[in-house]
Each structure stands twice: as structure tokens, then as C-alpha cells.
């Protein structure tokens, strides 16, 4: 599937680390020091959304953090870069609904017969965020991102439960889109901009791209002993 913009479709850190590998200083210094410096620098960078506006991005960052909050289990969506992941995904063929059947007529039907709206993911976010912030203002007098977390949770609960309609989009549809992409951003390979520092993988004990478990098929229930590696070669 050709990408409308190869730079955007190409995962983030693949090119970043490949670029690094090509530098003389990398090979001269060698070892893990430069890797970790480079990765730390990258983790600290700020991201400017390209598809979403600054206000939409603020909503997204706040909402994702409520779905996957920072807690004793591990980092939340904000630290993991989930909003960045979603903004990047919306610029790929996925954001344009490239493998969804989008021919009309669009007819409402029972929920179990699946998605029937004329909107691709980009539309769902643009329309959904605008309407959710309007709902937040109407209910609480503030934008979603400016509310205390318990009020944010109340809004998300109402959306999930299906009692709120966001303009043309049922609240539940918007919520499910948000939840699905949040979890993708937390647990996809870091090359896509989320799962920073492989924090999502460390939390659940997934070793990433190791993909060779010949010696651990059956160790009587012992935990797999090696930490994750990403597709670009990042380790943690």
C-alpha cells in the first residue's frame, strides 16, 4: 500500500537509528553510552502535532491519559507518547480508512452488524474531539483537558456507556476508537512514536522483537528473563 507521504508513513525511529548508525562518531564511541544518550534525547524531545490542532492534541493527550493513567503499574499514556502515536497514525493510510469499505448508502443498524458511519479515523477524531470539548464546556464550563480527572472520567464513562451523542458520532463509537488507538500507542513498537522507552512492554513483561524462545518453551512457569528489544535495536 503506497503511502501518501513516505516520510510520515515510515516509522519514526527506524530512520532515526539508521541515521545514527551511519555516523562516524557512533562507531568511534561505540557501546551503549551513545545509544542511551541518543534515546534519552529523543524521549525528551517535544512533538508538534501535524494533523491535529494544538487544542485537539491537548484533548487527546488528556483523554488517553485517563484511559491509561500513570500509576503503580507503570507509565501512563502521556509518558508513553500515545497522543504523538495517534497523530502520526492519522497521517498514514490507516487514518484515511484505507482498508475500510466506505461505499454508501450508509444505513443505521443494530450494533452487532458493525460500524456503519461514513467517517474514516481522521473524521472521527476531528468531529469527535470538537463535539466532546463542546459537551465538556456545556456540562462543566471548561475544555476537557482543563477539568479535574474525576470530571474527565465522568465524561469518558458517559461516552463509553452510550448515553452521549457527539454530533453525528455516537459517543460509544468515539470512545472505542480512542481506547483502541490508545492501547495501540502504548504497546506498539516504539518506531511508531508511542511506547516510549518501551515502557508499555516493560509493564506487561513483553520482550518486543526478541522472537526466539527456543530455550523458554517450557521452564515450569518461570518468567522470561530478558528485557525487551525494539525493531530499531533499542533495549531496556
Amino acid at each position, binding site marked *: 500500500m503506497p503511502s501518501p507521504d513516505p516520510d510520515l508513513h515510515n516509522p519514526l525511529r527506524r530512520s532515526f537509528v539508521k541515521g545514527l548508525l551511519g555516523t562516524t562518531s557512533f562507531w568511534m564511541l561505540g557501546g551503549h553510552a551513545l545509544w542511551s544518550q541518543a534515546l534519552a534525547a529523543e524521549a525528551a524531545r517535544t512533538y508538534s502535532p501535524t494533523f491535529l490542532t494544538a487544542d485537539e492534541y491537548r484533548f487527546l493527550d488528556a483523554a488517553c491519559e*485517563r*484511559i*491509561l*493513567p500513570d*500509576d503503580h*503499574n*507503570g507509565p501512563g499514556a502521556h509518558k508513553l507518547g500515545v497522543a504523538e502515536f495517534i497523530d502520526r497514525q492519522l497521517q498514514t493510510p*490507516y487514518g484515511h*480508512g*484505507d*482498508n*475500510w*469499505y*466506505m*461505499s454508501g*448508502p450508509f*444505513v443505521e*443498524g*443494530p*450494533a*452487532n*452488524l*458493525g*460500524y*456503519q458511519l461514513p467517517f474514516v479515523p481522521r473524521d472521527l477524531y476531528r468531529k469527535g474531539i470538537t463535539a466532546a470539548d463542546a459537551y465538556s464546556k456545556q456540562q462543566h464550563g471548561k475544555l476537557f483537558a482543563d477539568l479535574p480527572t474525576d470530571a474527565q*472520567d465522568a465524561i*469518558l464513562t458517559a461516552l*463509553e456507556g452510550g448515553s452521549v451523542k457527539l454530533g453525528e458520532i455516537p459517543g460509544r463509537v468515539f470512545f472505542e476508537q480512542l*481506547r*483502541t488507538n490508545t*492501547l*495501540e500507542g*502504548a*504497546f*506498539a*513498537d516504539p*518506531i*511508531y512514536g508511542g511506547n516510549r522507552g518501551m515502557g*508499555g*512492554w516493560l*509493564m*506487561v*513483561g*513483553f*520482550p518486543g*522483537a526478541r*522472537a*526466539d*524462545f*527456543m530455550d*523458554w*518453551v*517450557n*521452564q*515450569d*512457569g*518461570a*518468567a*522470561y528473563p530478558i528485557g525487551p528489544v525494539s*525493531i530499531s535495536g533499542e533495549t531496556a
Partner: protein
Amino acid sequence: MKHADAIVIGAGWAGSILAKELTEAGLSVIMLERGPERSTAIEGAYPDSVDELRGAIRKRLFQNLSQSTLTIRNTIDQTALPYRQLAAFLPGEGVGGAGLHWSGCHFRVSPDDLRLRSAVIEKYGEKFIPEGMNLQDYGVSYAELEPFFDKAEKVFGTSGVAYTINGKVTGNGNVFAADRSSDFPLPPMQDTFSAQTFRNACSEAGYHPYAMPAANASRPYTNTYGCQMGPCNFCGYCSGYDCYLYSKASPNVNILPALRQDPNFTLIANAHVLRVDLDSTKTKATGVTYLETLTKKEVSLSADLVILSAFQFHNVHLMLLSKIGTPYDPVSNTGTIGRNFVYQTISSSRVWLPPSKYTNQFIGAGGAGVAIDDFNCTNFDHGPLGFIGGSPVWVNQAGMKPIAAAGGAGGGGAPRWGSAYKTDLVETYKHSLGIDAHGSNMAYRDVYLDLDPTWKDAYGQPLLRMTFTWKDNDIRMNQYVVSKIAPIAKAMGATKTHLVHLNQGQPFDTRHYQTTHLGGGAVMGEDPKTSALNRYLQSWDVSNVFVIGSNAFPQGMGYNPTGAVAALAYWAAHHIRTTYLKSPGPLVKL
């Protein structure tokens, strides 16, 4: 117009097997595949291949619904709506078809699966069959198919352990399995920790656990065509992926490397077949017309023999679009194309082990695991239960990745987001395992496939319409088998068990993955009134058309379908080679 002796539609398992057999017989063969070429060496190579987002989540190897899909409804009085997003089932697209992204569960059949109507009537009488259930025999026996199961396993490099070979007990395989003429080509896959825990508990409970037969190579292997496989390392990237280790059998690894060497063979990718062309009598195919999807140019080819070997429902769709045979009408109960559409009745339960035990769910192989057949097919007494069919029960730890695990965590009253959800996700991912009841699904008069009156594909042709829901017989079967999981879970040392089963009145839900094992719609049999194909998978109506795939199954069986599809493909090919080509025409005369 370009001519081939035979045109094969679809480059999955069925098409690759037929193309190989027909070129061996000296025929010129053109294979048409609507998706792109697929090469493990390029796009399936490590590390890009072990990328969950790019693979199973963004659905790289599956059908692109933007071009063509189907519509779905539960009952005849509903308006069917388009299946707009892939979810409940995942057909393949591109060279290798679903055979590139499958798991590798490679079963034979239970002999009674092939003669279920006869077996039920023999044991319980005809009245045992509920009103509206189209229970049918295949018209072919296990003894007839055995050489072709054997042949397929040696092509697929199947790992497993036999119970009996030529009537003698040889190993600790499935005691319910039919006799074999030779052993599996490779020894069984190792039990994962989860599978071994299940095995021990099943033995304790008095059941008969066995290593699932897997088309994942337990050792290096060179198959009958000279194609090579490397040993599986349990990386966990089978279902939804192309195996970077060349350990999982696929048409791309196990057949096409040999086929591509044959000068009589031509593979055309990006070729979407619009119809099989018939002569004016509608009893003979003259060739096919396809669209070059990259240039949008329509091309017609002529052929003496046309093999439909696309995915199950694409075969039915093409028959309806080409007007091969008579479309099924559930009201008048006439016609056969679209009749006996079936699925499988599957539910996945979850068992949590103590916190000291890590199930390492990311470790696995698609076809590997431990199963029991005590509640499959006719292996138990259905008399007092009053339903037909059954389910193997298994722990098939195939490699659970974190996006899929996170998506599925929570629900059923438990939070699906927030801190409590996170806690549950971590515990579930680290310490739980899945147990599946992978069951049969019977055929019913009002469950079928036809053409949709409203929606069209990107080429202007009507979409296929599916009318399907769960029925009482199959729901009760599923509930009964799932009830047998509870004591096994207890014996496994479960700290918590979440049993999942269908409920009465629950309609088929297209939004959640169930299985890609669709079947029927153009079934084989002995009576042209109730089957689209004769016992050699030849169209009753157009004798130079053979339709190969799970579309031929009169009802959905408990086992995964690929093993039966491959055996039926070799069976049909054998009869084309030995009988049909000498004297083309119907292989069964009425």
C-alpha cells in the same frame, strides 16, 4: 485471446495444490490472484515481520475491504449491512492467500465428520435431527481421503504424534483419531508450559490429551517438492504474519518455489476475476474475465478447465456472479449455490494461575498445543444431550502480543480502562492462559449466501450477502462443552476462571474476532438437489468447473479446516488427472 489448458483462480493452498498437480499432468496453467505478490524474503523478513501493529493490527496480509466486502444480517427479515471493518473473520489477499497468515493447526477429520447425517441417524434415528437443520454427508469417506491427508502432511511438513498406524498403537497421540497409513513427517511440537499444565490436568480428569498436529516444523525439513523449512523457535508470530523462519507451512514456502520453476505455469497477481465465462448452454465454461487492478484493464482468457480456489465465500460469490448452477432460495428450498453456509462455534475461556507462575503468553506457535477430543464429533453420547456436534478443547498458545491482549482485557463487568484495568491487564498478561472450545456449526435452511440487492464492490458487481446467526443446537453444544472446562481449570490450579460461552438469543456479532473458518455455500454431496458439487468437487451444472475449498463442507466441523481442504484438493486433483482429463465430462453420472 490467450489460452491455457487450465485456469486456477486464487493462489492460496487449494489453488497452489491444484496448479501443482495439473502442471505435473502436463497441462499449461495460469493462476490468477487478485492481491499482490508476497515474498517472505523481502516483506516478511525479520525484524519488520515481528511488528504487531503492522501485522495483525493494521491487517497487512488480509483482504482489503475497500475494494470488495460482503453484507451481513442475522435473519431473513433484516436488511443486511456491509462488513466495513475486518473483525469477526479475516480472509487473506495476495499470493499465499489465507495460507500465508494462518496459524498452522493441521488436522485430518474424524471419519464421522464426513458422514455426520448417516452417523446420527444410525445412532439416534432421523427424528434426532432438528427441524430446519440441513444435516448432510460429504459423499466421500475417510478411507478414500486417507492417502491424500497423508500426501498433504508430507508437503506441509506437519509435526505430530500418531496414535495408530496401520491398526497398531504406536504413540501417545489422539486416541479418537482415525487410523493412519504412515507417521507424521516430523515429531510433535514441544508443549509450552501452559499446554503442559493443561495436559496434566486433562489426564488427571480422565480425558485423553494429545499434541495438536501442527504445520509448524519441529525440525528442519525438506518436503516432497524439495522445498525447505527451518525449525520453529516459538517466536509467536504465526497467525496474521508470514513466518520469517520458514517454519510455518504456506503455499509460498511449500509449493510455489517448485511450481514457479515449471515453464507450464504462469502466475498473474493483481488480477481480480470478475466472472467465469460460460457458453450459451450454460453447461460449459469457456474461460474467465478478470480486471488488472493496477491498470483497470479487463482481460479475457480461454481455458478447457476452470478451477475456483479462492477463499470459501469468494468461490460462492463467483459462482453466483457467473450464473453457475441455481442460486439457493430458502423460501422454496430450491437451488444449491449459497445453501448450507456454515461457520464454527468457538469460545475462549481464561484461566489465571498463581502469581508465581508466568505463562509467557508471547511464547508460542500457531499450530502447537494440547487438545482433548473427548467432546468432539461423535466421540461422546449425544442421546441424553439432544444436540448434534461437538468441540475439541485445547490450549493453543500461539503467541499473544500486547496490543491484542490489551484490547481484549477487561469487560464482562470489569473495567476496560483506568488504573484498575491496568492492574488487571498486567496480571492477566503475565499469569493467565486461554482454553478454547473450538466447535462445529450445523447448517440450517435459513442460513445462507446470496447476492446483495443494494451494495456493490469497487468493480460495480453486487456484494455477496450473508444471512447467519447462532442456533439453539449449536449454542447448547457450546454450553455443554464449556461446562467441561471448569473441572480441568481447577485441576490446573486456577486462582480464577472466566468461562465464556454463547447464550440463547445472542446474535452473531460481526465486531469481534471469532474465526476465519467459514464453510459451505457450495457443498459437495451425492444429490444435485442438495449439493452444488459432486463428490469430486466438480460442479453438477458446469462439468469443466471444479470448486475447491471449505465451501465444500456441508457443515462446520470442530477441527480447523485447512487439513481437510488440502486433502480434498489432492483428492479432486487425483480424479481430474486419472479420469477427467482422459474423458472430460461429469465424473458422476446420475
